[in-house]
């Protein structure tokens, strides 16, 4: 802990377990004090973080003591905010996407944007399927997709040096043989 020549503390610091206090929450907490202190966030060993607030000049002894306590509270607040935000990100994206799509003309909408993603209805641990992925197609993107589909239909993808248009069987023989080989490798 840094002190002046007269023994007055010039900093306050806390060490935290990153498992409990993610870096984003610690940075947000430190940022909130930049009006009253110079903030620093650093690693403090495996899975640990240290946040240091160096008091700005003319900070009274009482204000310094208060800052240390406020930092602890702010860390708790930011950690909770971080959890809430993480858990609800997709559901918030879905509500906003649905609202934005509702303002578009019907021709610009896609059906999937009207339905909630699986995670929105089953909880944060459900299968992936962000509502943001269902964003409406704009005219330019639709045009690009049409162009690519026409290209495929016209067979212009014949130039295929990596063989990505060939099936597994065409490249490696009957399906049963290939699967059998894979199982063997897995068992080895």
């Amino acid at each position, binding site marked *: *802990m840094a002190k002046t020549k007269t023994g007055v503390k010039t900093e306050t*610091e*806390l*060490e*935290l377990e990153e498992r*409990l*206090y993610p870096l984003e929450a610690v940075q*947000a907490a430190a*940022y*909130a*004090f*930049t*009006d009253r202190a110079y903030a620093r966030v650093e690693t403090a060993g495996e899975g640990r973080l*240290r946040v240091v607030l160096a008091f700005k000049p003319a900070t009274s002894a009482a204000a310094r003591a208060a800052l*240390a306590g406020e930092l*602890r509270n702010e*860390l*708790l*607040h*930011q*950690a*909770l*905010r971080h*959890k*809430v*935000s*993480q*858990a*609800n990100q997709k*559901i*918030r994206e*879905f*509500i*906003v996407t*649905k*609202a*934005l799509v*509702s*303002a578009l003309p019907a021709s610009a909408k896609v059906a999937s944007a009207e339905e*909630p993603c699986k995670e*929105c209805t089953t*909880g*944060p641990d459900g299968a992936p399927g962000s509502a943001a992925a269902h964003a409406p197609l704009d005219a330019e993107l639709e045009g690009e997709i049409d162009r690519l589909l026409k290209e495929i239909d016209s067979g212009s993808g014949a130039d295929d040096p990596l063989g990505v248009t060939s099936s597994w069987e065409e490249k490696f023989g009957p399906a049963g043989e290939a699967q059998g080989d894979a199982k063997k490798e897995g068992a080895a």
Partner: protein
Amino acid sequence: MSPELVEAPPAFDPVKVGFFRFRRILGKVLVTNDLGRHRLLSEEDFRRFAAGEIGPDDPAYRALCDDGFVRDRMDFDVLSRAWAERHRYLWDGPNLHVVVVTLRCDHRCVYCHASSVRLEDRSTDMTEETARTVVDRIFASPSKALTIEFQGGEPLANWPIVRLIVEEALERNRREGRSLWLNLVTNLSLMDDEKLDWLLERGVNFCTSLDGPAQLHDRNRPRPGGGGHAGVARWYREIQKRTKRRAFRIDALLTVTRNSLDKPREIVDSYDELGARSLFLRPLNPYGTATASWSKIGYTPEEFLVFYRAALDRVLELNRKRPRARPFVEQTARLFLAKILTDRDPNFLDLRSPCGAGVGQLAYNWDGAVYTCDEGRMLARMGDDTFRIGSAAEGSYEESVAHPTVRALAVASCLDNQPSCSSCAYKPYCGVCPVQCYKEQGDIMGRMPTNTHCRINMGVLDFLFERLQDSGNARIFKTWLKQREGVVGEASYRRA
């Protein structure tokens, strides 16, 4: 000395609890969400809410479900409609068009944000040719509602151009049929009966500046030869009388200086004595003369908030004496309360995300230069043209609104991109001014912990939520929301 270790964060149930932000106010915890819905919970209820322990048998459960705070009880149709309603301005385009017809003015206000010039100096008068190109540019906006706001200087100093733009705009709108509002921001000193008749016949609204009692007003807004306050009071009464049953009207705002800080009661009472329906308490901004005179007339955000709280309490006190049908409204509070108590956003351009710069408003300087906003043109007057996005005479409307500066300001003022704002309980009610951030902090993104605008808005919102906890105050606040909005265009309460 070994550093102190802190305990774990509070319990949170990620399956049952929807998104919320929170802030402690007077021993309670305010929770808000993206829809702007809010609940004030006791500490114990907040702990139970976050832990997912408030269930169907709890009296608070139904309201929390309806407001989108309960994750496994969300009605997506209702919630997305509420979000769209709150953010309807996203689909509107620029509807506020500030036209600076001259920088000439007969006042010498100690805080003049526009850096006006003397009345006899005609070098900054807008020409007829420029005025016509400005009207063309205004009507290039896709917005179904247009507000043309005459600013200055004192716009009446260039009366022929005010007349020309009003006539051109009305004529143009006869063909286009948009919702057109015409607002004159004036100190009223150059008003006369002939001008007033002409303006009233055409439905022009008025917004004037009134800084309080005569002595204070004339100290803040000196006019060579005197009589500033007397002139405003006379014409204010006259216009109020003649617009009593009309769809348009006059309002006044006041700019708070250091001279005002010890007179909250006198200022509020002076508006009441004038028979005003409202007053609008506005802090100083760092533009024009205010920058040079800041050491004499400036103050800290905390000093402003002490003043604001006393003034708003006096306004509430007067409301208790008035009939409920004739409330006396403080406009800063009403803008926030509309956001807090309804799903409808009043589209006040300084209090939305993103802000209105280039996407909600455009400012046209006397020479036809187009700026993202009124603040941008004020800064240009101080020698910084950063926020100029074109000219009414050259290029196109599309080039101006798609200008890289407009995009940068939209990103910078989107509160989801602001480190402090994105997690602030007041996010659904607030906004940042990137031009002010740039002026004060050298960066359009700003830094909220030291930002003046942020401190003032936080303090005002804290106070409103404190006062909302009293049912008598809450009833008064709700009567304010029944008043017709869009007086001088909700979007266009600007700095006179």
